[in-house]
């Protein structure tokens, strides 16, 4: 493992993006950050700016109007960058499939590295998604 990979995988800073989610996934993401589940033991920290973040945690079904914003926020993140799609909506549109205003999933807009299924997924599942992503990145 190179020292760069070691440094990156031991401090994955997160940016949380709500792409039209109903807030259930967001609450579970916030719960995963709390001391009870403690995502910080992997070095993860929630950041306010995409320019400081390595991992983008996206929830929601991606409505047509938010498509360009999602792409723009993603492009503001420095390389190397990763995307975790949290919840059924972010994976495939979920119950909003076939709605005229929905793009049906984050991977239609930006590349996704890890999917976390569930409606909403448990905080443990989100942690597992992040850890699997880190392992695939060479943790």
């Amino acid at each position: 493992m190179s020292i760069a990979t070691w440094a990156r995988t031991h401090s994955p800073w997160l940016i949380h993006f709500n792409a039209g989610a109903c807030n259930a996934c967001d609450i579970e993401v916030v719960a995963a950050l709390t001391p009870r589940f403690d995502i910080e033991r992997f070095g993860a920290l929630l950041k306010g700016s995409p320019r400081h973040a390595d991992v983008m945690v996206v929830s929601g079904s991606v409505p047509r109007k938010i498509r360009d914003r999602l792409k723009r926020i993603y492009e503001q993140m420095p390389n190397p960058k990763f995307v975790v799609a949290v919840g059924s909506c972010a994976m495939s549109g979920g119950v909003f499939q076939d709605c005229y205003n929905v793009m049906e999933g984050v991977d239609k807009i930006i590349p996704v590295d890890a999917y976390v299924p569930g409606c909403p997924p448990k905080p443990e599942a989100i942690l597992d998604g992040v850890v699997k992503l880190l392992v695939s990145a060479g943790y």
Partner: protein
Amino acid sequence: MSLEEHAKVVEDLVKEFGDENVYNTKVPRVYRAFAHVNREKFREVVEYLKEKHGFTHITTISGVDMGDSYEIVYHLRGDGFSFSLKVPVPKDDPKVPSIVDILNGAVLYEREVNDLLGVFPEGHPDPKRLILAYDWPEDVHPLRKEWDIQKIRERVDGKRWGKDVE
């Protein structure tokens, strides 16, 4: 207030405008009433209800595609009493008179109906797009029955896509 008093409000309205302009009235229970109103007399009916019976609040406006016509439903409310006025609109002339100058709260609802069902509010102070995406084509109204999801995607994105296609 009792059911009789509420039924009296509806009777009074029919007496004022005649049963060719206000018809299919229904008072299913206390604090609830329905009526069909002709489009030509609609503004006067709303004004009358506001002045005489205190329906000063518009809860929402909903639009229905009935197949051979549209129906715009105005949900008025005054003193806990909900009164839904249904206005039939022919498909070849999809317009309704705006009631923004009578009930100010209608300003956003009328724009929403114009976006989603394509029924234009005539006399609206600012009838621009409200909720559809900025690159959405002008002539696509997603709640009209002639548009299904694949037709919309073909028109908006240039191709059919989704779980039934791939």
